């Protein structure tokens, strides 16, 4: 029955709506039957994600074919398929040689007045990229979760929520119109609430969930208003039409387009954790680690970036991006600020997940910055590569907590020296970190470098410097985190794991109780001995459900970058996605600059500098200082001759720590963090408290006092009048009768007088 349409665009391209539908159905199946399944519903979740992945892969394959072999003119016709699906192919977009029209399949949803709403799929390069990415990472994360949250008291709910979460993201990614987009966007918000608050027995977790939902919701206000403005402006909800009209915008109502762009961007600030609404993101670490990795790699937080990329013509034209002479615009400024402040904050975190959280915020800043300077391909490609290595990093953190550090995420207290015992985790971490830093020939390099290059090339000089300084900071804080986690002396929970693994387990458990780090609600906590089998070549590492996804992601952290490596002359990804923003229309996005090592050199040098400096400081502060302090007496007795040298070294430590770190790095980062915690968070809290106070005041005085007072006042007036007339109400029937007749007589008299 799909024969007709198959000829037109390909089965997968036209039935891509199945990709979100499968996990959405799976969500209900898990809720309904999950508890009765042998594996608590996780098998339904994983199966649905695999099915989505297969279809997404098929879609991607057919999309590649479609791009490589442009369809003939005649096929861009309106075709009506089965199930009442109206398949429309945008005809205008198919003129130029490499122009590839999106494949849009829609089903009418409803009409109210002039609002026509449909659901379906809008498949183009951008959507295909994200579909594949989300389905792929969701699958891996779910496999990982089977081990990570095993035995959790809400195991089934966890899988239900995470499946629905992926469904929400997928719904949003292939949305052909703004309403479906909002639908997916809000479903994600709901699921993030459920997942971050997964262990809601603890107030901190439920508060983090509330904060996440609420902060994002503040941004959503912009989404609603922006959509309304676009609808009023263009009279349509269809994303394709909005883009086309925005790209060719010639009306005199430019202010409205600017307004819509700003409103929508506010939504992106909330969702993508941009300054100043980024504060929910680190708190969101209260959720289980697989959730963090999914939220922070390919879903939720990239939704905001995706919105800008999806409606790029609206922003590009609305904000005059790339118009000659422009060196600042809202998106670039917000992106740039976010890059720097988040990177700064990442320096002072002890919690490994918070380092990664701030890193995510910072990288999202890069994406926004890229979109702000006209580097559309670079930004989208950064979404793509970032997803792999950031997901890998979070899963590494989870793996460490799960196996190595006894469910603690504190790098200073419970980690260190883990590289030997957890080789897989270590290698994947290192590879991903290098990708994140932007080391050449790792994936992050290709995407980040294109953003940096474009900033310079498109005359956004300030942001060029912001970007390379940010790159150096990234290198530095990741070096610090890596050092604290894997090098140096094993501490706390890690010490137990590294040194005491062959010992009896009773000390292990006693240790756990003493430290009380098991704050994440693992009900029936299980010793590593009860884990599933690890991989044969890394027996002390986490079990295979954790390490296999890690290895896959690690490999991709290197190789995903080669889909678009300007340094090697590869522009395949660009070729596949460029039609998504309607190239060839009146809107002109500058082409990405030619790659040259000379242009990339300053950035790379700064990254190297960041790495070296950070390594030295980390070694001094976190490594040697402790040995110096702890081993002072020991060495006094053993190595009297070397004492002076040690003292000197200690002196250096003091120099580093007291002068450089304490005087420079710490105050600045602390100030930023303080600003974050007190000023911005303070504002959020103050707004909340202020709202409540205002509410209370309004309630107390206006509502209960004034408005109600007026009502009660009229009652009192009536009562007063009644009081004055009280003597009349003697209760004597005869008197009533007399009054009645008297009144009637007076009435009659009046009547007679009036009529005569």
């Amino acid at each position, binding site marked *: 029955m799909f024969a007709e349409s198959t000829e037109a665009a390909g089965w997968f391209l036209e039935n891509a709506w199945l990709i979100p539908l499968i996990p959405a159905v799976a969500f209900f199946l898990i809720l309904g039957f999950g508890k009765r399944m042998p594996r608590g519903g996780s098998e339904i979740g994983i199966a649905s994600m695999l099915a989505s992945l297969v279809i997404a892969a098929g879609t991607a394959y057919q999309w590649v074919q479609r791009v490589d072999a442009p369809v003939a003119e005649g096929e861009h016709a309106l075709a009506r398929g089965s199930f009442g699906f109206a398949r429309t192919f945008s005809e205008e977009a198919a003129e130029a040689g490499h122009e590839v029209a999106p494949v849009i399949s829609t089903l009418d*949803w*409803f*009409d*109210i*007045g*002039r*609002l026509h709403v449909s659901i379906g799929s809008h498949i183009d390069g951008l959507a295909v990229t994200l579909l594949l990415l989300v389905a792929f990472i969701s699958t891996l994360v779910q496999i990982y979760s089977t081990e990570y949250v095993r035995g959790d*008291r809400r195991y089934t709910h966890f899988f239900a929520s995470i499946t629905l979460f992926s469904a929400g993201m997928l719904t949003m990614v292939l949305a052909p119109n703004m*309403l479906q987009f*909002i*639908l997916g966007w*809000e*479903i994600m918000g*709901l699921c993030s*609430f459920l997942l971050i*608050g997964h262990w*809601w*027995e*603890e*107030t901190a977790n*439920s*508060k983090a*969930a*509330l904060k996440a*939902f*609420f902060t994002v*919701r*503040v941004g*959503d*206000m912009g989404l*609603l*208003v922006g*959509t*309304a*403005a676009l*609808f*009023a402006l263009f009279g349509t909800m269809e994303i394709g039409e909005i883009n086309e009209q925005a790209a060719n915008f010639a009306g005199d109502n430019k202010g409205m387009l600017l307004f819509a762009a700003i409103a929508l961007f506010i939504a992106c600030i909330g969702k993508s954790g941009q300054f100043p609404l980024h504060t929910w993101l680190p708190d969101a670490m209260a959720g289980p680690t697989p959730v963090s990795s999914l939220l922070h790699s390919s879903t939720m937080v990239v939704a905001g970036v995706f919105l800008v990329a999806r409606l790029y013509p609206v922003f590009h034209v609305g904000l005059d991006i790339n118009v000659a002479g422009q060196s600042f615009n809202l998106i670039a400024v917000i992106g740039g600020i976010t890059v720097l402040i988040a990177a700064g904050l990442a320096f002072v975190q002890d919690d490994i997940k918070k380092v990664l959280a701030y890193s995510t915020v910072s990288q999202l800043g890069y994406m926004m910055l890229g979109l702000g300077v006209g580097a559309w391909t670079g930004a989208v490609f950064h979404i793509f590569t970032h997803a792999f290595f950031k997901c890998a990093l979070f899963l590494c953190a989870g793996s460490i907590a799960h196996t190595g550090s006894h469910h603690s995420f504190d790098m200073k207290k419970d980690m260190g020296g883990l590289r030997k015992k957890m080789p897989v985790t270590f290698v994947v971490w290192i590879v991903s970190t290098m990708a994140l830093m932007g080391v050449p020939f790792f994936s992050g390099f290709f995407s980040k470098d294109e953003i940096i290059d474009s900033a310079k090339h498109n005359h956004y000089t300030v942001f060029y410097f912001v970007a390379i300084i940010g790159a150096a900071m990234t290198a530095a804080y990741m070096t610090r985190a890596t050092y604290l986690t894997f090098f140096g002396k094993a501490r706390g929970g890690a010490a137990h794991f590294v040194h005491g693994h062959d010992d009896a387990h009773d000390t292990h458990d006693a240790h756990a109780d003493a430290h009380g780090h098991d704050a994440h609600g693992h009900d029936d906590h299980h010793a590593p001995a009860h884990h599933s089998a690890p991989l044969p070549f890394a027996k002390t590492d986490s079990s295979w459900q954790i390490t296999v996804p890690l290895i896959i992601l690690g490999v991709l952290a290197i190789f995903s970058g080669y889909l678009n490596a300007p340094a090697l002359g590869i522009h395949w990804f660009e070729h596949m996605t460029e039609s998504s923003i309607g190239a060839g229309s009146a809107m002109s996005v500058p082409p990405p600059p030619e790659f040259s090592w000379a242009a990339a050199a300053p950035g790379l040098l700064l990254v190297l500098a960041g790495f070296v400096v950070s390594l030295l400081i980390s070694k001094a502060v976190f490594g040697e200082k402790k040995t110096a302090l702890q081993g002072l007496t020991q060495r006094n007795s053993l190595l009297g001759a070397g004492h002076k040298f040690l003292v000197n070294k200690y002196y250096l430590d003091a120099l580093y720590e007291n002068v450089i770190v304490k005087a420079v790095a710490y105050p600045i980062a602390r100030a930023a963090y303080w600003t974050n915690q007190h000023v911005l968070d303070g504002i959020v809290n103050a707004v*909340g408290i202020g*709202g*409540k106070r*205002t*509410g*209370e005041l*309004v*309630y*107390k005085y206006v*509502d209960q006092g004034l*408005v*109600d007072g007026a*009502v009660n006042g009229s*009652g009192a007036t009536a009562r007063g009048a009644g009081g004055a007339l009280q003597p009349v109400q003697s209760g004597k029937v005869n008197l009533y009768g007399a009054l009645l007749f008297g009144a009637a007589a007076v009435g009659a008299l009046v009547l007679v007088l009036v009529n005569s």
Partner: protein
Amino acid sequence: MIQEQQWLLSLGTFLPLVGVLVMLFIPKKDEVAAKGVALVTAIATLAVGIYTLVQFDYDQSEKLQFFTTNKWITPIKATYTVGLDGISLPLYILSMVITVLVMVYSWNHVPEPGNTKAFFILMLVLQTGMAGTFVAQDLILFFVFFEVVLLPMYFMIGVWGGENRQYASLKFFLYTMFGSALMLVSFIALFVVTKNAPGVNPDDANFSFQWFDEHGRDIARDTAIWIFAGMFIGFAVKVPMFPFHTWLPDAHTQAPTQGSVILAAILLKLGTYGFVRIAIPFLPQAAVKWAPIIGVLAVIGIIYGALGCLAQTDMKRLIAFSSVAHMGFVMLGISTLTDLGISAALFGMVAHGLITGMLFFVAGSVKERYHTLEIKRLSGMLLQMPKMGWILGFCAMASLGLPGLAGFWGEFPAILASWDPLSGEGLPYGGLSVGLYQGLTIVAALGTVLAAGYLLWLYQRTAFGEVSAEFAGTGHDAHGHDSHGHDAHGDDHSDIHDVNTFEWIAWTPLLIAIVVFGVVPSLMFDVMDPAVSLITDRFGGK
């Protein structure tokens, strides 16, 4: 007008009264019989409603169907005219559904001080009043039904209510009566003015909607504005709109659960329905002048209601205040005078009825179990009553306008519409200020944020966390395992058990409806849209 099966609407409207008649002969002590007869009557009424639903011609939903007109009180030219179109249909059916569900819920939830028979009789009388209001096609008939609703509700609050019931019921009654009095004056003025208009044969004048629909628009604008004012106050009190809302929190808080549910689900809609059905189409020239005022008050109501919610310490009162905010969205939609806005408002009315009704049900059941609704004292509901907790969460999410659930389709299209209200060149009655409405839109969107704030705050405080010490060790154990705490012999709070059978029966249809209308909003939009267009066409807008 389609004049087929003319008996149908009268049957649906007055069938409950037959039940009342039967119940009068049941001895007071025989509670089961009284409940049985009442429930059977309500179900029979619903069956008539479903038959109406089946017989309704959806291709002509803009026309009045099952239309019938008869002489009623000839001297004052009032007629007995009833009919049903796409605007009334959802509300008419909703009132029947809610009555049945409330009765099911009441089966083992008759509030103090008992007297089951009277309680059920009142509900049946209410049902007649509500259904009658939605089918009446004559102003006097409308007014009678509108007022019939008042008395049973007064008694329901005054007799079966909370500690402060006397005050609340009296306030409710006087407030609404005050509005109704002005409304009646306006109705009569409308009649007199249209009757005495030049070129009109006074003998033709009557109180049927059709007459006003044809002649109301010819009234001079200044006169029309004053007539509209009376109607505005009458309906605004009922909605309730800021600043006429202060009866609502008291009435809701003091009313028994059943009263709150009916109040939220149906009674509030009488006001908005009045705007859509009477005030706006009959007096379009005044509506255009009044719309900005309505819009501003609606938006104030949205923000004000949300702020009020944030200040509450009592769960039921919070839900009551949230009604003010939600009805603000409905009124904002209506005030745009566009097809989109009024459709959104009508959808919002039904959605609010389903969702807030459901929230009041949950609040009632929580109160019954914990004997308190103080948010501070409640905690960890998800541990003690997981199902109840999830239902509360579901309703909170629906209420804050999550797409895919019914609440969203009342809110979002209203925002869309208010960004782009009735405006343009050459409109017969003029347009509205676009700038003002765009400002209102932004403020209204802020209201959605606040809605998320108070609802999630409520949910976080009551459902999440550990069970508070006060209620710990009762009912379910702290980890929500299988021990169903059904032993009622323990201390005060030993009856904390999860959702029971009657509650399931009463709630499931509402929960399903919230999802179904959220996923397939066209079920309602398609029915309402033609009828709404008929109203908005006269304004000449888009």
